């Protein structure tokens, strides 16, 4: 008899767990309130935002083309058609996961789950019927929700969270983005490209708090041009919405006391969603930050219940969740699996993109680790010049003793794709020599990784920077 595993929450963690369990021959039930597996990522997050960012990039490039002797005139945006395109992308992907789920004979139940005991789940379905599922193991992949703070929680169609902003109600004349993190900057970039005058307000002294300043610099420079106003070290003290607009009061240097915007997007972060009825009927523990506590196998304090993804801890990223999914399923199968990555890549899909993996310079400093940093500036890359996007940098964080690559950071066009090579290098324990000695295709931006390794040795073809004698 194979084990019966129920996965609650069908985001990229949950459905990856369900599909893998099915592939290993387990009996699987997958529960989510959407029609198909996908979760926030596919329905209201990563995927729809990338569809819109793709369009935004095209719009920006068409403007940029003027400098290359090509003029398209002003772009005309049909917001309904654009919304359709985005919805089609979502539909295509989620119906795909739905089909793959069927092929694997996963028992997909659409509805709201609650726990009766550690091995019994009650699912309330749309038609008000209920179904009881009894299982051997459970995986909680409950995801996360946008953070709300009372002073900014105004019930008005003019005040959006990321979900509302992705619905593209209209192209506003002006919009304030509260929170200079990746969600606010990505969505702000979309609206800016569509013609909205976007302002962003961030409480800390810089955009993308926590990210490498060397990399953020490129994005900040760009945003200065494409956004109406960037207010850092500034707090929103109060907001008032009317039918037509939102009046916002600020506190901070360089910020107006008050300003009026058509819309406000609140993107101040996400919080884990550990609230499921009946959790108190299990031994599962939730920590003071709201995350479900797990061990290295993602097993909770209740031995038959696992937790993965956003609800199980930072970083709240889809690819972390999918990886944890496999660990948890392998643990259920009795393998000695462990969630122990050397690097979890993070990507900000703005233009330019920012991506990093492994150790950062700031983290190395905080831990007092001695590292060497090799930077390759993109103005020295033939491809970057050819595409007229020299606003970028590739940097490697290297252990001077072993010459091992401990971290990679990239800012620039397509950084999100380039970072994957960095992840493999870190995971494989590659040394700077390994990157240097691997032939990279010319002319591509991937060469910047190879040349950054050459910079470490003071021998980069396109950068003259002799290695300091130490």
């Amino acid at each position: 008899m194979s084990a019966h595993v129920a996965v609650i929450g069908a985001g990229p963690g949950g459905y990856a767990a369900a599909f893998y369990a099915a592939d290993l021959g387990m009996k699987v039930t997958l529960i989510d309130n959407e029609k198909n597996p996908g979760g926030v990522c596919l329905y209201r997050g990563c995927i729809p935002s990338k569809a819109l960012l793709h369009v935004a990039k095209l719009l920006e490039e068409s403007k940029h083309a003027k400098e290359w002797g090509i003029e398209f005139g002003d772009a005309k945006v049909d917001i309904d058609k654009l919304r359709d395109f985005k919805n089609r992308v979502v539909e295509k992907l989620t119906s795909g996961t739905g089909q793959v789920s069927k092929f694997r004979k996963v028992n997909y139940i659409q509805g709201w789950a609650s726990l009766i005991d550690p091995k019994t789940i009650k699912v309330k379905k749309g038609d008000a019927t209920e179904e009881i599922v009894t299982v051997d193991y459970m995986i909680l992949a409950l995801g996360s929700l946008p953070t709300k703070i009372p002073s900014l929680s105004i019930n008005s169609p003019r005040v959006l969270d990321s979900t509302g902003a992705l619905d593209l109600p209209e192209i506003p004349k002006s919009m304030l983005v509260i929170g200079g993190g990746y969600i606010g900057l990505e969505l702000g970039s979309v609206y800016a490209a569509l013609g909205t005058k976007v302002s962003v307000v961030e409480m800390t002294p810089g955009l993308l708090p926590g990210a490498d300043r060397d990399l953020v610099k490129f994005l900040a420079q760009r945003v200065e041009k494409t956004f109406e106003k960037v207010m850092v070290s500034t707090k929103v003290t109060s907001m008032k919405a009317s039918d037509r607009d939102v009046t916002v009061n600020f506190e901070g240097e360089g910020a107006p006391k008050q300003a009026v915007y058509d819309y406000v997007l609140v993107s101040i972060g996400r919080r884990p969603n550990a609230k499921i009825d009946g959790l108190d009927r299990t031994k599962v523990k939730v920590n003071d930050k709201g995350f479900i506590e797990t061990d290295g196998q993602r097993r909770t304090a209740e031995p038959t219940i696992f937790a993965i993804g956003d609800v199980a801890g930072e970083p709240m990223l889809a690819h972390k969740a999918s990886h944890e999914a496999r660990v948890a399923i392998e643990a259920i199968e009795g393998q000695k699996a462990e969630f122990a990555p050397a690097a979890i890549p993070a990507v900000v899909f703005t233009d330019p993109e920012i991506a990093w993996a492994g150790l950062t310079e700031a983290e190395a400093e905080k831990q007092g680790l001695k590292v060497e940093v090799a930077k390759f500036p993109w103005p020295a890359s033939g491809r970057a010049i050819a595409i007229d996007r020299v606003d970028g940098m590739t940097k490697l964080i290297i252990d001077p003793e072993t010459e091992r690559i401990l971290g990679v950071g990239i800012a620039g066009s397509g950084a999100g794709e380039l970072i994957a090579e960095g992840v493999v290098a870190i995971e494989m324990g590659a040394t700077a020599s390994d990157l240097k000695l691997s032939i990279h295709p010319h002319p591509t931006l991937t060469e910047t990784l190879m040349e950054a390794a050459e910079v470490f040795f003071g021998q980069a073809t396109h950068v003259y920077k002799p290695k300091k004698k130490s």
Partner: protein
Amino acid sequence: MSEFILPNLGDGVAQGDVLKVLVKVGDTLAVDQSVLELETDKATIEVPSDVAGKVTAINVKAGDKVKPGQSVLTLEGASGGNGASGAKAAKTEAPKQEAPKQEAPKAAAAQAPEEPDAPVEPVAPAERPKASVTNIATGRPAPPAPAPVPPPAAVSHVTSAPAAPSVRRLAREIGVDVSQVPGTGPGGRITQDDVKEFAKRVMNSLGGNGQAAAASGAGRAVGVGPALPDFAKWGEIERKPMTGIRRKTAEHLSHAWNAIPHVTQFDKADITALEQVRKKYRAEVEKAGGNLTVTAIAAKVIASALKVFPQFNASVDQAGESIVYKKYVNVGIAVDTENGLLVPVLRNVDQKNLIQLSVEINQLAEKAKARKLSLDEMSGGSMSISNLGGIGGTAFTPIVNWPEVAILGISRGGFEPVWNGKEFEPRQMLPLSLSYDHRLIDGADAIRFLRWVAEALENPFALTLRG
């Protein structure tokens, strides 16, 4: 600012538990001054500083697990030491033993407050015996010549072992801690072969140098058995972590028991005459600082017996399909201490007289009780003796101290009626048990060996005659 980095602790010692921090913030530290009391697998050692200066922060506390390469102290105005070379020794000799991320030096401020459990007493180097510490810590006495002030010692740290995900998975599956595996690749990268080699080595030599992560049988980690029941169901319980000595004893004896097909042979020696001789010479030995005990005499007898029966002074190399015969005669003496069982080794027993051996046994037992034995003093035995007679017992089956092949157990002696052909005579009889490795030693040889030992004890002159 400078740092005192935990140097290499000796072959195969990957980590230790901090028992005590012997300095406090504000102390002026001298070269060679003891900084930490560490409990490693079997020995408690004091780690001397190789730098001098004023202590500004203590980066470890009692109870921490520490590894060579880890920062112990932050110092100000460091001078006259050889911190650079100390740090280097740790780096070059133990490149793979760097502290993992979670054990990286923590913020000095967070570590500075006094730990209630860690009485902090600055100790001048001369006030404490430093038995073997210098040897273990640096592999050599601290050089007296002052070196230039070292640059801020920053150990190179890595966030995880340099091994590909597939290699890390292999290690996990066979129960090997990948961070302990020495990498042979560039930059110390650990290959699949490195992991397999490490596992093989640990299996073959889970003795003095083996790590806990040994694999045995069908890829199962040692000590991992079926899950324990929930004892609390039946009443109150208390859970305490094993001490380093207990852990090591458990691993070592499990391995010995699993690796060696044991047989135990019993006999009795008539020591009536021996006891008279022993009483006669006891005072003379006492004057020299020793006790002329049955154990001391047994050690001398064993030394002679090992020369007559060389297969008892040997080890089995199963993997190499060979037998290692030892030309030296070292005898281990099991010592019962408050902290557990320790087996210091008497060296070259064949070349020493009973007075010398008695004095040495006393010294080693004292050291064992004070937890000052070095690893070196506990390895390299030919055969061991376990004398429980002082406590009692009529017989027992000792476990061979692998990789040795035999162990002599001694129980409590006493007067028994012995038939001398005409009548029962009261004779003082000493019960002996000989456990041996049946792979190498046949039963007939074992009883021949034990008879030889018994006869030597019965007639001390036999030693001089045949030994």
